[in-house]
């Protein structure tokens, strides 16, 4: 039973070593890393990159953790993740509010970007459907946007259902003759758009901004009735008297969220990130540099840091 004994000793060692790991460590400024969640869309490489660079300039040890955007909340609440700097109210607004309500996370304010997510079509479709971008032209062009599987309905290509946004309700409320097809991932969605554009084929898809896609592809947003709170809350509002959501999505702020322990463990970092503010134009340019020109995200971030020293120095305490 020698192997068995070795196993036992190993397990015992594992258990004993626990004692050492769970003593709450004195979180020194330079030692214990601040963990920032990095998500899987391209603009996020830039925003988290900037946050990391500034914190490092301030003397912190920073680590980026690849984390699922929707699935990271338990991690933020438990302190496995300390910061997430790009929470879109359009997609994760409810999740964030629920999480902040637990008291385990804290909203550090807006990052200064405005998230827009809307329906988009390529420019050349304009010719065959002159009524666009007005949404009321959509039903006239349903045939144009249809495929053999959806005909006579048009095909509306959207993101996975988990991203929210009430589009199923919107299509019904606006009485659009369209079938919703959900791409399984961002890459798959844009692959299809790219393919359609190469062939000058009509396509109607969900895009968002800031993102490289609206920069790379020449097209327009569909004009829906503008968003208002009443549209979401009150069925009688808008073109459909019996249903809510007969309007566009709210264009939402993008928030910075921290684990509630951040303030105590790293007060300066808490201040810096709270102060941090960017804007759509500069982030749009940086996304373009990374995704369209194929440049290294770290280099692009380093350039921003060099060029905007006055700005971010002012955020340091």
């Amino acid at each position, binding site marked *: *039973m*020698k*192997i068995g004994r070795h*196993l036992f000793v190993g397990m015992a060692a*594992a*258990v004993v*070593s*626990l*004692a050492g*790991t*769970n003593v709450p460590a004195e979180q020194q400024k330079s030692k214990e890393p601040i*963990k920032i*969640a990095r998500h*899987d*869309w*391209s603009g996020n*490489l830039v925003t988290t990159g900037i946050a990391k660079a500034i914190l490092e300039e301030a003397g912190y040890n920073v680590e980026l*953790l*690849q*984390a*699922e*955007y*929707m*699935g*990271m*909340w*338990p*991690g933020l609440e438990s302190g*496995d*993740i300390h910061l997430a700097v790009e929470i879109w109210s359009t997609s994760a607004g409810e999740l964030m509010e629920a999480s902040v309500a637990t008291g385990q996370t804290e909203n550090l304010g807006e990052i200064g970007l405005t998230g827009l997510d809307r329906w988009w079509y390529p420019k050349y479709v304009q010719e065959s459907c002159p009524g666009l971008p007005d949404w009321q032209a959509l039903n006239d062009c349903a045939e144009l946007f249809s*495929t*053999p*599987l959806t005909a006579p309905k048009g095909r509306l*290509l959207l993101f*996975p*259902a*988990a*991203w929210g946004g009430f589009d199923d309700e919107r299509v019904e409320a606006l009485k659009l003759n369209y079938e919703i*097809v*959900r*791409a*399984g*991932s*961002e*890459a*798959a*969605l*844009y*692959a*299809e758009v*790219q*393919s359609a554009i*190469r*062939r000058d084929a009509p396509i109607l898809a969900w895009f968002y901004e800031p993102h*490289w896609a609206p920069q790379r592809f020449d097209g327009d947003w569909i004009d829906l009735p503008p968003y208002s709170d009443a549209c979401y809350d009150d069925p009688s509002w808008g073109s459909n008297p019996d249903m809510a959501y007969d309007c566009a999505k709210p264009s939402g702020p993008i928030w910075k969220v921290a684990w509630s322990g951040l303030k105590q463990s790293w007060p300066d970092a808490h201040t810096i990130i709270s102060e941090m503010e960017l804007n759509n134009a500069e982030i749009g340019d940086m996304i373009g540099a*990374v*995704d369209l020109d*194929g440049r290294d995200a770290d280099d692009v971030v380093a350039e921003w840091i060099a060029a905007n020293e006055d700005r971010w120095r002012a955020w340091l305490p």
Partner: protein
Amino acid sequence: MSLTQSTNKAESNTFYRANLPLGTKKILLSVILISLLFVPGWFGAATSNLVEYPATWIVPLNEWTSNGIYWLVNDFDLGLFTFKEFTRGISWLLTRPFILAEGILVSGFSFGSENVVVPPLSWMGVLLFCVLLALRIGTPGLALGVGLSLLYMAVFGLWESAMTTLASVSVAVPLGVFGGLAIGVLAHRNGVFAKILNPILDIMQTMPIFAYLVPVLFFFGFGPVAALTATIVYALPPMVRITRIALEQVPKEISEAGTMAGCTEAQMLRKVLLPSALPSLLVGVNQVIMLSLTVVIIASMIGAGGLGYDVLTALRRLSIGQGLEAGLAITLMAIVMDRFSQAAAQKSQVKRHENPRLPIWVTGWAILAALLLPTILSNWIAIFAAYPEELILSTARFWDDAVTWININLYDTLSTIKYGFLINVMLPVKQFMHSLPWSGVVLFVGALGFILSGWRLGLTVAALVFFLAMTGNWEKSMTTVYLVSVGVVLSFVLGFPVGLVAVYSERARGAILVAIDTLQTLPSFVYLIPVVMLFENGDFAALIAIVAYAIVPSIRYTEFGIRSVSKDLVEASDMMGCTRWQAFLKVKLPLAFPEIMLGVNQTIMMALSMLIITALVGTRDLGQEVLNALQKADPGRGLVAGLCVAFIAIIADRLIKASADRMRRRMSGQKSE
């Protein structure tokens, strides 16, 4: 992926034992069986609950599971420490070797404030080391292949990512191997443990990784450890199974000799059983390596970094060429590690009789020096530290252009084929699957299990089918069954002839083997994005992904089955004056049938393991359910949907194994081993 032999034996059914090929009995039985499917539909409204599973009957297993996990995370106290502290402690332990490996291969080490820096291993050193090692344990051909593969990673600018991947694989593989070995030895000694273990291994292998990711994140935290844990869970089962089989197959004479020599139990294991099982155990090592590399992409979605991350970021901005380059690096790494372990296996068998040209300590030191010297020099000379950036090549433009060309020129033709197949084949099958009453399917599958093996199998599979309905996943399960079954049939229709070609043409065989090795290790996401460009999001793109991956076992097992038909029997048929066709149809094919059935089995397992990837191109099956649960961080929902996938796999496996067993028993009089 091999699920174990079902332990059920056909004990009871004398009804079927009488062997009447195509007799009335068989037809009658099939009619009864198939009618079971529809019985519940015949009585209209009275039995509508038996057709469509009512929402009120759904057992809230999702919620219970979630609550159970929250309880484990938040409240379960083991006395000295809580359960979460325990898992976090394990996580901390697992991180240590990972940090070490990453330091050695990627980032180097720095000590204290004085900036004492130990550089990571030099790329040139690693390259030389691997080439010399390959020369030492293998052939010059192996050394050349290893050298070119590593050079590929340097030249295409993938070195650092490749080393990050190697770091995590080099932690996951030993843990998988030794963990699997230990569990396998325990199972070998303790029959009860083995019995409990079996279904657990099945579930570990067939449950999509995303299904248990949320609990893993709860218990082990975010970061590379979560990825590591998931990799080990996935890659460990084959090692356990192979250990058990290898130990069981050690010839009696050897173990008896050990007993007579007066070995203690531990000596017996260490000095007798394990050494004589070594060649088989090395097959297990190979499996662990291969499977660890298969999950590189998924692991990179949850923080593993490396080549998988490169593939994902490239594809997200539709840089297909770059994605392909990084994907091929994963394939090359898998093949290099595979060939290395094979060479080591062969070497270990001839070691004692071999007479090396140079004494081992000379070559040993030389190989070590090749590794360390460039690393030391890399402190001062840049070319040793990193492959010069201006020499990095890329073929990405070529691939991107090729994809664009195909996209523009072949789209119309391909989409005609697509819609034809979708409308005439896939949609009818889908509608048929969805029209089946759930209770009819429970009865049908149960009866099938009973006929093939006995009441135990019948009850087990019926219960597993019921689970799909009970948890409210019926519709998604049927979508899954539809996609997988169309995929499996298509894989076989295409794979079977290819397998035959490989049997009859030695030259084609070499090319086919390379092709299927590549298909198996190239991350499917790499070809999935171009596939979406041609076929849009949806079931057809998913089907292509499934077939591309699942066709591999259907080729392998066809080839293997037909090739291993005993020569005597083929000669006998020749002498009886059979034509080539007759020999094939009447002798080889029937005799190879059990192997081919195992091929079907493996094809199903592979198809099911693609579900999580196909969810990324917009299917609406169990894979999508798992993905959605992950995105909502709902541990119960993901686990239950994952169990549904595992259960479908287990049902298919048990039924196919049972029918293959039956066939083999029937043939045992005719077929000589």
